[in-house]
């Protein structure tokens, strides 16, 4: 299995509070991704990174920001959490842009009350 960890694995927070989720990889892969998974929607891309300090938006980026200061870490921040951001969040990594193959972390279940 690819060396990807996510922390925390579970979190309950209140509406309006900031939340940061962390993805850590030990594979030295260039690309990192944040997805959210919701019933009936599959996985939707929030943000992704193609290198240190290089990030771009995905299809559902509103209300989220990211940072990547080191190759191994990719942080997802909800500046002011809302109930609509209750979801399971997955981090993924990819070595190259040639084969598109992505490897996934175990996920973080976030509940916003």
């Amino acid at each position: 299995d690819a060396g990807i960890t996510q922390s925390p694995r579970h979190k309950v927070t209140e509406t309006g509070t900031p939340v940061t989720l962390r993805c850590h990889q030990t594979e030295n892969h260039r690309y990192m991704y944040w997805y959210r998974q919701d019933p009936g929607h599959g996985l939707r891309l929030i943000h992704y990174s193609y290198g240190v300090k290089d990030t771009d938006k995905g299809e559902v980026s509103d209300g989220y920001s990211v940072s990547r200061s080191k190759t191994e870490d990719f942080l997802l921040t909800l500046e002011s959490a809302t109930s609509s951001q209750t979801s399971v969040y997955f981090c993924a990594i990819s070595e190259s842009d040639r084969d598109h193959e992505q490897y996934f972390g175990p996920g973080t279940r976030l509940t916003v009350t």
Partner: protein
Amino acid sequence: AQSVTQPDIHITVSEGASLELRCNYSYGATPYLFWYVQSPGQGLQLLLKYFSGDTLVQGIKGFEAEFKRSQSSFNLRKPSVHWSDAAEYFCAAPPSGATNKLIFGTGTLLAVQP
């Protein structure tokens, strides 16, 4: 816009029966295609992938998939399902022109009856 469609939300099969999960894509050129599996409470695991060449690809856990350009399909098959195959299955492909992203279908949840 490019899309990946999984028409079946839920499928139930008996243990030992054959399985086929459907995936359709809308792209002009031959895409890269993937199947992932997600067990309850877990992340996604790559089952198999198609890039080019032989249209029948073999994956892990006894799964295979066949790319059919004429039908824009990449269906996943297994000849004999085991109870441990109960999981959610996702088809994915990169959007046209994007070399480092994937679009996922909405998933098919497989239940296996004893």
